[in-house]
């Protein structure tokens, strides 16, 4: 299992799928920043003054980090950035769910705001985190022995 997951093709597939999803999700939100700000507002986490700045900033960050992961340019930095983003999303979704808020995930544009949708988004986020965590581990600098090989 570990060998299969470490296969270069598997790592490439993970990069393409996760990177692609972030570019797609970021693109949708980049096109509709005001609707994204409405989604962020449903989390009741940020003051109003920060809703538009965050709605303008997050989508390009997802697009850039996703594109870096796909292209392989500074792929470890891209993975690190996406891990942090996923952790932020997980905390935001988790607190909204725990408080019983009707959150509109906003992850892939405007979605439904049911409890089931929030749980699905949390599950999806955990899957991304597992994939990204594995990639980050594989992108760590090589041991000296490996680097001289």
């Amino acid at each position, binding site marked *: 299992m570990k060998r299969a997951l470490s296969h270069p093709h598997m790592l490439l597939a993970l990069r393409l799928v996760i990177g692609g999803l972030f570019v797609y999700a970021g693109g949708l939100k980049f096109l509709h920043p005001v609707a994204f700000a409405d989604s962020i507002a449903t989390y009741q986490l940020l003051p109003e003054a920060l*809703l538009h700045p965050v709605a*303008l900033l997050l989508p*390009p960050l997802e697009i850039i980090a996703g594109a870096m992961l796909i292209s392989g340019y500074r792929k*470890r930095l891209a993975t690190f950035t996406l891990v942090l983003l996923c952790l932020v999303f997980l905390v935001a979704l988790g607190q909204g769910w725990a408080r019983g808020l009707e959150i509109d995930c906003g992850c892939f544009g405007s979605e439904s705001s049911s409890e089931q949708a929030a749980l699905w988004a949390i599950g999806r986020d955990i899957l991304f985190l597992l994939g990204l965590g594995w990639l980050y581990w594989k992108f760590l600098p090589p041991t000296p022995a490996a680097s001289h090989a």
Partner: protein
Amino acid sequence: MKAPARLQTALTEDLAGLWLLLTATVVLAFTANLLRDEPVSLTYQSKEQRLAGSVATLQEDLSLSVSQGSTPLPEALDLEAFRQFVQAGQGLILDARPAIFHQLGHVPGARSLPRDDFENAYRLLRANLDQNKSQPLVIYCSSASCEDSHLVADALRDLGFSNVTIFTGGWAAWTRAGLPEESDS
């Protein structure tokens, strides 16, 4: 180098890289915003506030028209009542969902009056709407849980329309019942 040390080195490097990436993203994001057709202001307004702004602008710009009497509609229509309303064709059906969803499929005869582009869409529909402010208007959005139909109905009442109601089930109930659809494509 052992794994924890490799991890620590990588995290230190990536944290430094992240600041650079964030700075570049801030510059890019705000430059891209300035290049939009309508740059997004940094001040957030809720859906209700934005709609109220559109209503106020429309009230200022447009002159009031004369109302004519018609049978008042109930506060909300269920699927059967709405189906009969559609068949009778004695009023306007308005789709409060974003325009793209309306183009993909809507209730036959419905016109697009999206909550998220209310002001522009209202101006396009003015000829049909303003001729009679008491004509029956039924608004729907995506499902029973969406709020756009309520917001648009309130906005229309604020503009002086007296016979406005909502089809509660929305597009989801209409399609689930297998009733006819129309699309703009």
